[in-house]
């Protein structure tokens, strides 16, 4: 009897395990589509769309998995990078690069001209052509841009009125405003300066729009030329640098191998007079950031602005919804009027510098993990469903209803933003499309990290401009072989290099 009881006791966990897996098998009879996204603002909208899709396709179960931003990249690399069956089907591709080059994500190009069964027009017609083009990887559409995001300066309108200031129209005027704010014993700019900020936040944006403007003259060096696999005569043949026009090169196709070769051969260098001036201007700007910005995270910097301690902050268009919400939550005595102005152009320089144009682009971007052909067809069908005007409007409305932030305008045709948010977008419009922006080489993470080390030291006053740029130049040259290996470039711009078929 005792032996029987003991045997049963031992078998119990086994029975539970087997029972559990059988239950799982039953639920797996429905085909699964898993969306693993960090875009938690769309949580409600995505769930509504998932249930609508399941009603149309009872054989499919759609799972919306909201992932924390922190660690998302690592998680994606372990899930997708290992080719695991448990990998999600749809993910935010702006958080991890290089999967397509390794043949792990789907080339969506051939699907774009198929009719979307949910609109009866070609799928491409509902998507934003300009951003599809911009986000191409090795000439292929791998990334679906869902919404738009851009940066601009938010300012405390009450403080500006009190000090008799208007939104600045030049960079130099903005720094004069900053001096006036400082004299009024307020912090001119709230800027987070932790390591995340140098990679994907405010400080990274600042260096990006500076280098983008200061390197505009180098666009002809890296743009595709006749004979290159990605040469497009319509876009490139007649291009001339026009520094009076911020967007003169917006549609020019640049060849990544020409860019890497230019860095390798020292045609594009970081230790030039142009970079020297750009970096000195950033350091001059940093004098107006709050003390100890290198120890400030994004939330802490935002709180400085929200509590009226700082008069300005550089933030993304997603902050509009957040500020509206936070102002509503503040007591009447603490609320203030705020406004937005675009990043103003530099007018005093030794060089001909075009106006800044921001660093924005698509905010939420989705890619599809390559599994079986049947699964790809299923996932593409779901994507077609979620990129109809009706679906995009559902995402907007559910997000607003849940008091969640919207990144910016949707890049899916037919969706409209509520007036309370849309009216602030003037400063963000017609911007983005940076071309040659550097903080590391081609976002290769080791070079980004090393640059962060030098840039933090530089802005902290522990390195001279020359020392910083010398180190940066060395970092860039060392990164070249890694970027070449990661992307499997053969360094011949005439051939398209991709592991993906």
């Amino acid at each position, binding site marked *: 009897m005792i032996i029987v009881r*003991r045997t049963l006791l*031992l078998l119990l966990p086994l029975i539970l395990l087997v029972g559990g897996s059988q239950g799982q098998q039953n639920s797996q009879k429905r085909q699964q589509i898993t969306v693993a996204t960090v875009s938690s603002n769309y949580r409600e909208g995505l769930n509504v769309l998932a249930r609508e899709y399941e009603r149309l396709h009872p054989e499919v179960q759609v799972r919306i998995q909201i992932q924390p931003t922190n660690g998302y990249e*690592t998680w994606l*690399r372990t899930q997708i*990078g290992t080719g695991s069956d448990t990998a999600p089907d749809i993910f935010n591709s702006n958080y991890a690069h*290089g999967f397509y080059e*390794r043949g792990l994500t789907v080339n969506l190009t051939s699907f774009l001209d198929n009719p979307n069964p949910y609109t009866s027009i070609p799928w491409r017609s509902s998507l934003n052509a300009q951003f599809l083009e911009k986000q191409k990887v090795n000439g292929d559409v791998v990334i679906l841009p869902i919404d738009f995001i851009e940066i601009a300066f938010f300012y405390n309108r009450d403080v500006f009125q009190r000090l008799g200031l208007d939104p600045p129209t030049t960079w130099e005027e903005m720094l004069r405003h900053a001096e006036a704010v400082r004299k009024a014993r307020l912090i001119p700019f709230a800027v987070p*300066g*932790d*390591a*995340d900020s140098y990679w994907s936040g405010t400080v990274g944006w600042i260096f990006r729009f500076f280098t983008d403007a200061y390197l505009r003259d180098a666009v002809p060096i890296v743009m595709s030329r006749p004979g290159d696999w990605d040469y497009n005569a319509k876009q490139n043949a007649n291009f001339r640098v026009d520094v009076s026009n911020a967007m003169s090169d917006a549609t020019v196709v640049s060849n990544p191998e020409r860019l890497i070769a230019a860095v390798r051969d020292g045609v594009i260098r970081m230790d030039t007079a142009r970079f020297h001036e750009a970096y000195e201007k950033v350091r001059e700007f940093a004098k107006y950031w*709050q*003390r*100890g*910005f*290198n*120890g*400030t*995270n994004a939330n*802490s*910097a935002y*709180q*400085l602005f929200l509590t009226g*301690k700082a008069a300005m902050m550089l933030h993304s268009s997603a902050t509009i919804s957040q500020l509206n919400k936070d102002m509503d939550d503040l007591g009447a005595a603490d609320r203030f009027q705020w406004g937005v102005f675009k990043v103003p152009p530099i007018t005093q320089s030794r060089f001909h510098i075009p106006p800044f144009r921001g660093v924005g682009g698509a905010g939420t971007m989705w890619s599809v993990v390559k599994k079986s052909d049947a699964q790809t067809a299923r996932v593409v069908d779901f994507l077609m469903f979620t990129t109809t005007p009706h679906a995009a409007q559902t995402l907007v409305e559910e997000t607003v209803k849940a008091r969640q932030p919207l990144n910016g305008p949707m890049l899916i045709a037919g969706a409209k933003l509520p007036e309370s948010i849309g009216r602030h977008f003037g400063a963000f419009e017609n911007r983005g499309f940076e071309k040659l922006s550097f903080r590391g080489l081609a976002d290769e*993470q*080791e070079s980004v*990290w*090393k640059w*962060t*080390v*030098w840039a*933090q*030291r530089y802005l*902290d006053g*522990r390195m001279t401009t020359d020392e910083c740029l010398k180190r940066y130049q060395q970092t860039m040259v060392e990164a070249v072989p890694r970027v070449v*290996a*990661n992307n*499997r470039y053969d360094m011949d711009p005439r051939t398209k290099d991709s592991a993906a078929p």
Partner: protein
Amino acid sequence: MRRGAIWRSRTSYLFLLPTFLFLWLFNYVPALSGLFHAFTEWETTGGAHFNGLDNFRRMAQDEFLLLSITNQVWLLVASLLKSLIVPLIVAEMLFHLRSGRLQQVLRTLFLAPMVVPGMVGILLWGFIYDPNIGLLNNALDAVGLHHLTRAWLGDWHTALPAVIGIGFPWVGGLALLLYLAGLNAIPQDLLAAGAVDGATSWRRFWAIDLPLLRGQMKTIAVLTIIGSLQDFGSLLVLTGGGPGLATHVPALHMYFQAFRFGHYGYASAIGFVLFLATLAFTVANMKFVAAAEEMG
């Protein structure tokens, strides 16, 4: 006879089997895999290829890794001082309390923080050190010491000391328990003999308590060395190793190499050297304490 004893206790062994199985699978297999891959070039872009001692030569030339060693030494020394001295002082004070009830209450209060997950504590310290809305700067402002306020984790000069300050007043629950157990185990006749000889509390501490707590100190030192060399979680969350390299340590370098840069082979080599360093420090500590015991 031996086989018979095992057969009689087979149920117990069967219950232990899953533990050993998972221990092998999740602890030993990755460690052995790391050991093997330390001698390979293994990048995200391809499979692992044997490259001899290349990773170790690379370590010798990696200026970021070499700079991080200085930080690690400071953190290790500080950790040892914090974990060996502060809990000992608190244990002595608790042990000598006359009221047993008060002793029990205070002991519970000191041990209660052990149930709070470590990451919660780290994030709390992040809030304390926040330069703009943090508790520390606000407290300094409130008492008129604005000139002392700092970006504690963002200032090159204070970042490492601030990391060392995490957990103040550093009364580690486990160390306190070990010391209290050690003090309780001191034979009463020894204490009585000391009292007859007219030993003061100070004299008793140096002549009786401290020599008899060497075993506990050895255990605490070993655990602290292992913990200090392996731990990078708080640095990853609070500073990312910055500003610059002010709080960068070898374990964080290993993490970056593996999970941010995709250099798995090189990261394995760093892990292997960290393992050797931990082993060396631990053995040296055991030998040093054993030798001191013999001399004592």
